[in-house]
């Protein structure tokens, strides 16, 4: 087979995948960008160039929502990592019931986010919810707390539920990383008289560092795009306190019927995620180079 034919054959093999990706990724993205350049009211659209982007730059709601997104993502990711790593270290040390514990810890991750959010919505219900009932029974609170009704507790509640859902994934990644660390390194450290903290600092952490960066980047990308939990539990309220960008997009598009503006917010969010993706790819490449 000559080179030209081989090239054609190669293209023919790649074509189905390329077409599929174009249909499910490139076309929707291009269409979203096209929509963002229009003033859309229902089925009527008028071209306005970058008008929607100019409007966004001027819109206090967008900036507020961006701030909420960063606050939500930063706190959720920090807790995912902290708790996930701690649990992974504990499970890794266990000799018995490790598999059973893994399954138990993974359960929240197996539950669909919308289903988990609905369960928590009822658990946190002020009058009839189990959380308030238990806290009152224990004497921790005197009156029912409106967990989702006050800005501070609402944001904390959705972060807590996201942590409940997101920790297992990080724990699993960390556990996999911990199990790749050669046992000889720990034995050598022990011979040198290293205690638990020193072993963690000089053996575990350096071996896990790459994985932590990858997990953090992936988790940030995943969390900043997250809609389900907040959409179900608060819809962005009260008074916009939990209105992260995906919820703002939903509210603008479907409650507000302003699809052009919603598409512009979507493109802005895509930009943020792309920057994070570049960080991830660079980190992965850097590590690949150092390992080689």
């Amino acid at each position, binding site marked *: 087979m000559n080179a030209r034919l081989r090239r054609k054959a190669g293209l023919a093999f790649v074509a189905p995948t390329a077409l599929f990706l174009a249909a499910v990724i490139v076309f929707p993205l291009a269409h979203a960008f096209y929509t963002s350049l229009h003033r859309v009211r229902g089925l009527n659209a008028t071209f306005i160039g970058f008008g929607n982007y100019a409007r966004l730059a001027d819109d206090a709601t967008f900036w507020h929502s961006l701030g909420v997104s960063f606050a939500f993502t930063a706190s959720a990711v920090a807790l995912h990592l902290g708790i996930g790593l701690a649990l992974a270290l504990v499970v890794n040390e266990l000799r018995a019931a490790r598999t059973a514990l893994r399954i138990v810890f993974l359960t929240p991750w197996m539950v669909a986010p919308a289903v988990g959010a609905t369960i928590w919505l009822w658990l946190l219900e002020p009058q009839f919810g189990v959380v308030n009932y238990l806290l009152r029974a224990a004497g921790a609170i005197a009156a029912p707390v409106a967990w989702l009704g*006050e800005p501070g507790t609402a944001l904390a509640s959705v972060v807590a539920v996201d942590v409940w859902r997101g920790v297992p994934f990080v724990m699993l990644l960390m556990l996999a990383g911990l199990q790749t660390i050669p046992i000889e390194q720990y034995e050598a450290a022990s011979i040198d008289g290293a205690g638990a903290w020193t072993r963690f600092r000089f053996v575990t952490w350096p071996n896990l560092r790459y994985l932590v960066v990858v997990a953090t980047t992936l988790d940030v990308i995943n969390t900043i795009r997250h809609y389900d939990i907040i959409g179900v539990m608060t819809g962005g309220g009260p008074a916009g306190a939990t209105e992260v960008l995906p919820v703002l997009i939903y509210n603008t598009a479907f409650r507000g019927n302003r699809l052009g503006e919603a598409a512009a917010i979507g493109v802005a969010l895509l930009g943020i995620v792309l920057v994070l993706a570049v960080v991830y790819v660079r980190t992965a490449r850097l590590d690949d180079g150092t390992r080689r």
Partner: protein
Amino acid sequence: MNRSIGSLIAVAVAALAWSVGAAAQQPIVVQWQTANLTESQYEPVWKQTIAEFEAANPGIKVEPVLVARKDHWTKFVAASQARKAPCIVSVDVTTAAYNGYLMPLDKYWNAEPAAFRSAWSDAMLSSAKWKGQLYGLPIWGGTYAEIYNRDLVVKAGLDPNKPPQTFDEYVAWGKKLTGNDRWATAVLGGKTDTTTRVLLMWIWANGGEAFNADMTEATFAKNPRSLEAIKFYLGLADKSAIAAPAPTTTNYLEQTNLYAQGKIATMRNAYWAIAKVVGDNPAMAGKSFVAPPPANVPNAPTLSTVTASSISASCQHPDAAWKFIKFDADRKWSIARAKVANWMPLRNDLADDPEIKADPLLGQFVRIGRNARSYPLPHPAWAEIAANDIVDAVQKALLAPDKTDEIFRDLDARLTKKLRDI
């Protein structure tokens, strides 16, 4: 060889003819989506309506689209954008018509006999029109009034025959009805337009207006009587301390739950809420009484929702859809809805129907509804204004009562801009 080819062609033609015939025998399928098909009190009625319609029209199959109330509009918008919306829908007519999601019904309406058309008043029809064209047939509605738990009222030493007439009297009652882990009422601040419905009623009851006559300006703060009413109503949760906690998460569902469990003694709601309450707690049957909302001005109107059935712009079978809408608007189903689901009929000819009059509570709602304004308000941006902007302002004011003036001034500015941006 030639014979084989001939046979193959004959088989292919026969198969094609069979498939065309089979397709022709398939019934037309029209989908039906309203916010209420998932509500248990309505389920027996709509199931029977569909069954009898299909029996009478074997060529048409009606497929209900079950969707939760809060997702109803968004699902409709998404489907409309994809040109795949259900044929028969009940949505905010003005907003949906402005966005091009609905089909004008004048062709069908004008073709109906005068006897059918006379069952709807011009005023009622105008609530389903946009730019002079009819986009929906008003089917059922709900008048909002103050609903009281008779047992709790009597227990508090109050007379059910003399419900509060003014705001001050309402607070006086409220204080007597509030006790340990029990409140007089609930302030609605949850993220649905029910929050807006109730707020509008308090504003009107104080002689205020939320908008100017042609809906080009918002006057929540600009009109002093409106602002006074807003502060009074939201103050029930804070200043007067007679409302259940967590108002920013309280919607129709939470409010009716609280009432059904005896946690609150009164609620501002429509007749259908009583069916919901009894469904949740059968012990509440016959324990409610209803009165006009308290008001500080004479002849203050209450609010009546108008739910119209429309045909989506993407409907492939509008004739079949109209046939079902007409069937559903019939007296039989209007009465069934009123008796089973507590939804009030909107046809003129049913106001004095003996079966309607036989239900004293329904009769009381009908009387209160004689002085009511139609809802939703007629503006293309109303769906968003009602469910987002006004609710956000209410939530902010509930969280920071001392900033109520500023919050509603901002709302006026924001809404006025939005009202004019069409």
